[in-house]
């Protein structure tokens, strides 16, 4: 196995009294496709949101490659409740969390469970916007078109990306007018335009029929190879998950209950119970 691209340790995320994610630790290695599954409300999307910096965790830390994305280790009275130790012991309270845009800049891109496109913009602009982050022009030079070379290059790259992803023919359409499946594609295209190394997909197959799901499977494989990506995804379609994943994590009520290859997970009693809703040691 390659080096760890993503490493999550002891993440707890609390909203008031609700513990959405409870002491979650996991890792994703370079070149892998890893799936995070679990029943509805298990805390999967919350985990994604912590990884991409939308939420600062109540406890724990997230590392992307060697970059610290977020870390929070409450001390004092609160300490007992949570696991893990901060690296820097000299501080009373370590809390660090960088904003989602910086995380994206480091090379983590994501899609959303309920598609979040720039609805009233064209397909082309949706993708082109993702290039803005890597632009070196400041607003003055951009306004007065001193960056036209870079702009031209961005436009060409965007076009190329749209062609690869089979979106070139709809490039001038308004994003919200696309059919659902295409919107999913577009969201992935937009994520790819940020030139990520790690791609987080939040239920990419949601609302797709079996045939579309098959196409998606091939599509994810293809982009993984073409763009040399590591993929971490949340998914409900078991066909897709079992076929595509190298490893699977299973989350239930915020807790990690199983981890392993598709074969292992399929036969894990705890996972079956969780999905069937059996109450153990209640």
């Amino acid at each position, binding site marked *: 196995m390659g080096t760890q691209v993503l490493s999550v340790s002891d993440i707890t995320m609390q909203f*008031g009294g609700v513990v959405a994610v409870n002491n979650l630790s996991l890792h994703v290695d370079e070149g892998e496709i890893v799936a995070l599954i679990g029943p509805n409300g298990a805390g999967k*999307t919350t985990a994604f*949101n912590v990884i991409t910096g939308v939420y600062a965790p109540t406890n724990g830390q997230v590392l992307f490659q060697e970059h610290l994305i977020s870390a929070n280790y409450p001390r004092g009275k609160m300490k007992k409740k949570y696991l893990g130790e901060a690296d820097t012991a000299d501080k009373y309270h370590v809390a660090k969390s960088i904003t989602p845009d910086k995380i994206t800049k480091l090379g983590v891109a994501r899609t959303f469970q309920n598609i979040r496109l720039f609805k009233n913009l064209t397909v082309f602009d949706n993708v082109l916007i993702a290039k803005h982050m890597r632009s070196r022009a400041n607003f003055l030079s951009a306004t007065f078109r001193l960056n036209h070379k870079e702009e031209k290059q961005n436009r060409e790259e965007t076009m190329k990306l749209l062609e690869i992803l089979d979106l070139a023919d709809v490039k001038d359409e308004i994003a919200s007018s696309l059919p659902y499946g295409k919107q999913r594609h577009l969201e992935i295209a937009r994520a790819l335009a940020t030139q990520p190394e790690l791609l987080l997909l939040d239920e990419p197959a949601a609302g797709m029929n079996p045939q579309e799901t098959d196409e998606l499977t091939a599509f994810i494989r293809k982009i993984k190879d073409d763009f040399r990506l590591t993929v971490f995804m949340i998914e409900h379609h078991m066909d897709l998950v079992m076929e595509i994943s190298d490893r699977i994590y299973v989350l239930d009520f915020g807790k990690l209950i199983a981890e392993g290859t598709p074969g292992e997970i399929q036969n894990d009693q705890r996972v079956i119970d969780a999905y069937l809703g059996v109450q153990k040691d209640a």
Partner: protein
Amino acid sequence: MSMDIFLQHLLNGISVGSLYALIAIGYTMVYGILLLINFAHGDIFMMASYFMIFAVVDFGLPVWISLPMIIVLTVILGMLLERSAYKPLRNAPRMSIMISAIGASYLLENLAVYLFSGVPKGYPDIPWLTKVINVGTISFQTVTVIAPVLVIVILGALMALVNHTRTGMAMRAVSKDFETARLMGVRIDRVIAVTFAIGSGLAAVGSVLWGAKYSSVYPLMGVMPGLKCFVAAVFGGIGNIPGAVLGGIVLGLGETLLVAFFPGLTGYRDAFAFVVLIVMLLVRPNGLLGEKEADKV
């Protein structure tokens, strides 16, 4: 500063704060449910004052009939406003609703200028509110004492309503999650109408106390109290009824004591509320009693 003067200031502050609180409740309830700054709330308060003048001065009705009547009229006005200016925009972008609110506020103001002219009118005298009481060198009107007491009573009643009735439960549900509440069969439109009714009713009550205390009624009288009370609502934690009361009283006291202790700064009094707002947003954006909420992603 001598003790009696300080007490006088304190009394002024609490009474003006209580009036702020009454208006702020209307803001906070509407915001809690619709996530809308009802810019026209201050103008509803203004209209309530004019209703009173018409009832008592022009129609010669006794105060005890006029009082419930203007409250009913104001409630109708508030619900009418909601029907015509906000309900059609239920699914429109937030900015449209806010612009509609501004438009409604501007319309009421301009309408008042057109109908009643810009010349201030005197509020009808209500003796049991305006009677001056002297305690030592401290003088105050009965309304100064009645206002805070009334606010506490109303707060208690509202809390009971919100926490222990079906309507209150529906209100809480709508404010937590609009869509889910709708799916669960809560009659959203009814809840919103009730909210506007309560808010407008309290604005009417506030206008009576205000009129008794300050006696001058003019078309733009609702603008500043309106803005300040919104600030008070944010200060206390928007959507939170005790927060609005607390915010109103703190703001009223703050303004008064600013003038009391720093007479040189009286010119900045109106700026005080907004400075408080900005500092509050910087330090504790959810207000004194507000809960932190996470955005859904």
